């Protein structure tokens, strides 16, 4: 079984290497016919772009994605420069040069990868899955009988900030930087999954299909690991199944399947303000004005509002915010599966807690301001009189600027690069703890008006610190447990791991009456008359 586990690890490493290398294994030669048909479909008005492309790019060999991409960008920028100079606004191509390069790369790719996508898919993704499963399943026997087995978490380089952790850290950050900011450079990665996308749709995969697919695959494999690790704990099993289900079905399958029926590919579980582009003009217009959507478009809008403003608070009142954060949410789902080996890295210091409160509530305020401005703009856009421009500047602030800033800072950098990239070093809930505006919103309700609490069992705590160490949200659970006090904290996502790792049965997540939820128990049962009432 040791061999199975090690071999599995090697397969994962090979899969990741092949995946990473595939970025460099494509060359390009754009034929005139392909370029013409592409230009026809796109309906470019710009003859100068076509001429420049035919003059400089079409028919030439490019050995790397970098050279091809920059050649396309140059043509586009030069052509647009000419049109802008001449104020030929209808001829300007507004697609970003990266999108343009990505699209052209997809139709012009050559080389070993382009000719053998199935083979490369097998040696990257499929091999990775097989290796991951071997590594995970070997644990059933290797890690001994069911029970908490955090053995060597702080001895291993992968989970104790050793070099393996730093390699994973760097890889994840690079992955997100490419995904969000340089899709034109990762066409090799995207092509790997073309065969899967091709099973149900034409036109090849996008980088977002790649991301969604990887997300689901990682959650399935690491979810299985979670279930095996906590196979004695029904709460963990059911919760893991739930969170993986919502990711795979709602965030991926439905998003892919709905468009096949001419319906919008929306993630119905994604609630505002986590779903920050909900009121963007293009989203609302798309939902309301696309004929084929029929009433479904309106339903999506109404559902989104009801979910965010009615269902979220009601469920948080009944169950705590865990119903979303660790049972439904995609970000939470990745944290609870891929991120589980890193949960011990969240800082428990008072200082971190202070940063957390400032940061997460600032993001919530930012999200509310951004949504208000964007919403006003969208309203104006929908109701603008013919011939007039919709209002996009309010109190001197441009809705476009704010939304772009939010998308860049919060949507990409915080939730993606920091949120996931930082897992191996800073813990698996960086985004959920410090950045997620939905978590902040639900946190208020959880703290002040909810039935949820973690009950501390009398005086059984031995201050061992397992609960605090393994709290992914950086809550110093022991601080409360050792003084016999229930844990009622806005940041708790109710993952239940504190309760699972407690060796003395001290902690229980439960929903009960609000009366007596926030309480001051006797510090030690037995010394019955002594109660604590101090900050010490």
């Amino acid at each position, binding site marked *: 079984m*040791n061999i199975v586990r*090690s071999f599995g690890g090697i397969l994962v490493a090979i899969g990741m290497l092949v995946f990473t290398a595939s970025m460099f294994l494509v060359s390009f030669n754009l034929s005139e016919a392909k370029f013409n048909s592409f230009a026809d479909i796109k309906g470019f008005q710009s003859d100068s772009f076509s001429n420049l492309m035919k003059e400089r790019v079409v028919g030439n060999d490019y050995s790397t994605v970098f050279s091809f991409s920059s050649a396309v960008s140059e043509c586009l920028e030069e052509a647009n420069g000419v049109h802008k100079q001449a104020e030929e606004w209808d001829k300007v191509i507004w697609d970003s040069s990266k999108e343009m390069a990505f699209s052209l790369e997809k139709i012009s790719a050559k080389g070993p990868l382009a000719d053998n996508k199935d083979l490369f898919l097998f040696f990257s993704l499929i091999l990775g899955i097989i290796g991951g499963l071997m590594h995970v399943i070997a644990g059933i026997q290797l890690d*001994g*009988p*069911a*029970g*908490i087995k*955090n*053995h*060597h978490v*702080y*001895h*291993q380089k992968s989970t104790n900030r050793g070099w393996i952790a730093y390699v994973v850290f760097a890889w994840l950050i690079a992955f997100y930087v490419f995904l969000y900011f340089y899709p034109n450079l990762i066409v090799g990665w995207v092509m790997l999954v073309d065969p899967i996308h091709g099973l149900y749709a034409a036109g090849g995969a996008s980088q977002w299909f790649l991301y969604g697919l990887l997300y689901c695959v990682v959650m399935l494999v690491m979810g299985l690991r979670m279930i095996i690790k906590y196979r*004695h*704990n*029904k*709460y963990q099993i*059911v919760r893991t199944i739930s969170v993986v289900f919502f990711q795979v079905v709602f965030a991926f399958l439905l998003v892919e399947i709905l468009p096949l029926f001419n319906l919008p590919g929306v993630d119905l579980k994604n609630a505002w303000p986590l779903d920050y582009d909900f009121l963007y003009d293009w989203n609302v217009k798309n939902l309301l004005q696309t004929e084929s959507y029929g009433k479904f478009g309106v339903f999506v809008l109404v559902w989104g509002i009801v979910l965010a403003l009615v269902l979220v608070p009601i469920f948080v009142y009944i169950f705590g915010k865990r119903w979303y954060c660790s049972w439904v949410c995609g970000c939470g789902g990745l944290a609870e599966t891929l991120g589980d080996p890193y949960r*011990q890295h969240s800082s428990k*210091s*008072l200082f971190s807690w202070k940063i957390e409160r400032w940061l997460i509530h600032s993001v919530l305020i930012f999200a509310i301001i951004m949504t208000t401005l964007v919403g006003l703009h969208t309203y104006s856009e929908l109701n603008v009189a013919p011939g007039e421009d919709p209002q996009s500047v309010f109190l001197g602030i441009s809705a476009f600027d704010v939304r772009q800033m939010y998308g860049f800072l919060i949507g990409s950098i915080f939730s993606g690069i920091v949120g996931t990239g930082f897992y191996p070093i800073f813990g698996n809930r960086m985004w959920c703890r410090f950045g997620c505006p939905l978590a902040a919103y639900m946190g208020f309700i959880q703290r002040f008006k909810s039935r949820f609490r973690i*009950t501390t*069992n*009398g*005086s*059984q705590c*031995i*201050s*061992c*610190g*397992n609960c*605090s*160490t393994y709290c992914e949200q950086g809550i110093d659970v*022991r*601080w409360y447990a*050792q003084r016999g006090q229930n844990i009622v904290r806005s940041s708790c996502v109710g993952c*239940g791991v504190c*309760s*699972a*790792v407690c*060796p*003395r*049965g001290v902690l*229980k*997540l*439960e929903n*009960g*009456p609000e*009366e*007596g939820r926030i309480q001051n128990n006797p*510090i*030690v*049962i*037995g*010394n*019955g008359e*002594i109660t*604590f009432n*101090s900050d*010490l």
Partner: protein
Amino acid sequence: MNEIRHVVIIGNGISGVTAARHIRKRSDYRITIISAETDYFFSRTALMYVYMGHMKFEHIQPYENCFWKKNRIDLLRDRVESVDYSSKTLKLKDKGDFSYDALILAVGSTPNKFGWPGQDLKGVQGLYSFQDLEKLEENTHAPLTPLDKRMVKRAVIVGGGLIGVELAEMLLTRNIEITFLVREDRFWGNVLPKQEGDLIARHMRKHHVDLRFSTELKEIVADENGRCKSVITSTGEEIECEVVGLTAGVSPNISFLKDSVLETQRGVMVDKLLRTNQEDVFAIGDCAQFHEAPFGRRPIEQVWYTGKMMGEVVAKTITGEETEYAPGHWFNSAKFFDIEYQTYGTVLANLQSGEREFYWEHKSGEICVHVIYEESTRKFLGINTFGIRMRHEVFDQWLREGRSIEHVIKHLKDANFDPELYSSKEGQIVAQFNAENGTQIIPKKRSWKRILNLASA
């Protein structure tokens, strides 16, 4: 008591630290905690998790390092060599004389050694202090991952109690095979009834622990380098091993206090107010021995929880509110590999006269409930649970109210503390009780009103 300006506490374990925290809450006295062991308070019961790699040492320190300064509790790393009670002065190894107005002895325990031949050889050790943990790392410098080369092949553990089982669990994570010598005929036989002892033995064997009951250590044999190479047992068998764990209980760590005016027996003798026979000197925690034990309790109780309680009580007395130590009903908990254990009230190793028992065991053989009650009055006396969590407050209340066994069985759902979604065991437990006792108890649904004693109840 004379006027107090400076309280000195010897020992930074749970007892001493609890005393310091509560004195700080209640007064402005200067407080100094002296420890030779570590700079900061740590959870002794969690040392095992550091060895197993669940946590780093910093994680088992319950308070951030800034806590002590913020709360004006001075920490002094030094060793107390002797105490002059008349001049109220300590003699410290490094810093020399150090005076106090009130002194709290919270010096803890030390592992028992019973004069076995070879008990001081290299590779032979107990497990109590931070230094013991360091020594264990040294003695078992062995694989961290299964692929490494194995250096220590087998360890023999002597003494079937809580520390022994923890040591076994620790060493197994380094792929060291364990032979466990237990003097009694079952595991933790002076505390656990037979059923529970058997249950734990089964579970330990599932973890590949080689358990030898009714077997004692005769001798530890040295190799040419003065390191243990084997042990000889009372059955005459020689077992090869590179490490020997001595875990046959602990005794008060008071050798430096003996043979002075301070009255000691096994521990430092104290009255109900935790006062020793010397003025303004108190003793708490593992090292305290009561002249007259509280009702139903033993004169020395070396558990985390009693240390915490004594620390709280002594703080009240020192700050002017004389308070007797009244620990209430016994409770304790532990974990044997994967099986958690909790106990509330009194369950002795053997059924006493006038007592009756009810024992239920899950078909898995790893979950059980053992209830003891008084035969004549049917008063509930105590419960042991394995693999099932119970609510402390509820059992404490039932014990205080002197509830009957039937009441306990009927309201068992109120007491369940297992995580949500765990399958309920109460149905089976009540059915078996009914079958054995000819009763027709129907289990009551869990009631928050009863559990929380809500006013509206």
